[in-house]
């Protein structure tokens, strides 16, 4: 093979691999990406969204809203103190899940009820999911320093 031919093989294969990778990435971005919304944004956007779109909802667990149907079927409401969304979840809630505390749920909105397949609670007494803290700050319900107090 000539020098030119060898170089051609190298460049074509490099372009082919990069092309495939770019294609895969674009394809994966269509389905593999999850939007984060607050309960208020969810209410606004419901009309425009694909019905089966996956998303994450962040906010506080509405005090008094947690109901356990049986051992593992739980429902609760996530609120940003303006709007709230009813969430259903099957499974064990994380250790740090508490009423009035920050939470992020990931899943789909089905007939106005958010069906979560994973629930993340804040990490320790200070830490809360960053998106939740940001959106609460925007809404003015954030007390700096010690986190939001609900009672």
């Amino acid at each position: 093979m000539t020098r030119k031919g060898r170089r051609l093989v190298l460049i074509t294969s490099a372009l082919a691999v990069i092309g495939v990778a770019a294609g895969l990435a674009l394809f994966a971005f269509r389905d593999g990406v999850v939007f984060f919304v607050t309960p208020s944004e969810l209410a606004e956007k419901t009309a425009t969204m694909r019905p089966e779109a996956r998303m994450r909802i962040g906010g506080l667990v509405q005090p008094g809203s947690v109901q356990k149907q049986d051992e593992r079927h739980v429902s609760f409401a996530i609120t940003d103190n303006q709007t709230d969304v009813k969430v259903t979840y099957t499974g064990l809630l994380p250790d740090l899940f508490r009423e009035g505390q920050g939470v992020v749920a990931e899943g789909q909105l089905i007939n106005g009820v958010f069906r979560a397949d994973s629930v993340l609670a804040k990490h320790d007494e200070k830490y809360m999911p960053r998106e939740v803290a940001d959106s609460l700050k925007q809404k003015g319900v954030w007390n700096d320093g010690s986190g939001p107090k609900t009672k």
Partner: protein
Amino acid sequence: MIVEIGHYALVLALALAIVQALVPLYGAIRRDGPLMAVAQPAAVVQFLLVALSFAALTHAYVMSDFSVVNVFENSHSLKPLIYKFSGVWGNHEGSMLLWVLILALFGATVALFSRGMPDDLRALVLAVQSWVSAAFLLFVLLTSNPFARLDPTPLEGRDLNPLLQDPGLAIHPPLLYIGYVGFSITFSFAAAALISGRIDAAWARYIRPWTLGAWIFLTLGIAMGSYWAYYTLGWGGFWFWDPVENASLMPWLAGTALLHSAAVMEKRDALKIWTIFLAILAFSLSLLGTFLVRSGVLTSVHSFASDPQRGVFILGILVFFIGGSLALFAVRASALKPGGIFAPVSREGALVLNNLLLTTSCATVFIGTLYPLALEAVTGEKISVGAPFFNLTFGPLFIPIILAMPFGQMLAWKRGDLLGAAQRLVLAVAIGVAGMVVLEAVRGGPVMPAILAGLALYLIVGSFVEIYGRLRGAKTLSNMISRALGLPRSAWGTALAHAGVGITLFGLAATGWGVERIVTVRPGEPVAVGPYEVVVRELAPRDGSNFKELVAHTEVREAGRVIAQMDPSRRSFTTRTMVRTEAGIVTLGAGGQIYMNIADVRVDGAMDLRLYWKPYVALIWLGCLIMSLGGLLSLSDRRLRIGIAQRASLRPQAAPAE
């Protein structure tokens, strides 16, 4: 007093680092021997000063000196001694001090073990290394001083975050940092080559031990971090495609590519400019990782210490070094004599394919990790890119790597015989396909795990075919053993490291066969998990030094017989009023594990349990250990030691004596 000495030592180290960054550089440009000779003692003393500083902080932790803010915020007099030591780097300030310590350690090691190296190369390498350490010393002193005092002195500390009170903290960060920072040396070598405009096969031999060393530690660090997450986070996950994990995976991928391209450069004097670029890339990604973790720009299960102002400083360091080195690369790379070009079907061709796939997969991880940040900065929209994205992009790119790995070992330099290699790999392919069919027949369910497991078997067998080929001619067993021992250690190293990848892949594939059960039980009620049965015998309270816990004494049974016991628990830490669950893990059979976590204990004594049976799961980390072992063997190869490299570079025409 000791604390002030530590602080002062750090200031002195900075002053010395600035001297070491400038004087040898000037000396190398002016070809002035005495000025270049400043580098070596300066690097050693710089290390000693940083070590003194680190020792002072450790002393403050062990003595529980709560007049130091850092100790007050992260320690407690009742904390077990091991966490007083590891607590030193269990916080932002201390971990940055550890970073600088390792950086200085590498500088000192180059200074001490570089007898055969040309003087100007050594001076330039140490100068560049010192630019990096000066920047980070400045960062520590200006934004993250671990020695700040507190007045009046509190009586008791706030204790370390309970999630970090774990032996994992003692091991994981040092391993990972040695890996990250180890690439600083190859970076310095690359910058030195660009400044001096000279690069040859000897250069590739100088960087070989450093690249390999950094790679070994990074592999171990990532594996350790993954295992730590697995047993502490409580739901049996071991890799979350979390940005912080990706931050360590990216330098690993670039470093793996570097390791292979440096081999081409060493043997065939080709891919020179590409190798330099990879050396810059590997360290740039390490710096990026440090930025992502330390600046707190990410939502992440790992960020325990974050501060945006520090973020801007690290971003400055990042821009300076990445931008600076790439600018240097752009200006000077054309001055380097390019290497030859070679046949596509050859060992070097296979290594180029490896590089292409590794860097592209690294790029997809990069995009998936940084796209959400970029999108949020530009549009304010918040998204998360999770496992589905990476499985769809990284996965398909990694499969061709797995397929090509045994071929690469089999092809000769210059001109390979693809058909011949394929014929010799028939056995490996057969075992892979047979494994796939049998596993699917036995396990059932989705086909993906069986396909991946079959690929893994192909890779494990294929890794040793080359060595087997070399031993086949032996007549007797003793002849075969002596031949096996006579093979270069780097050949064994390659085979082991490649097989390690296969073993890890097998463990990953087997996660598809796992069983998960979420149950509510009372003591004495048996629960079936996979082929086993788990019974909590009793629930009992127990006191630890700085926590109280509720322990579930549990038996694992097989066919009615008790085969193992475990003690998962729920710990309440008194100082931070926080609960942490301790998973119970039992390893059974071929690396399979029963994993049990107590999610909740109710007033009436019933427990909510998460129970998992994870067949072969331990192979994931065992494979990483084997990869590192392969690296270690390769590192110990006598022919590739630095002294030999130096002799070879003095006599470039002479054929190797062995």
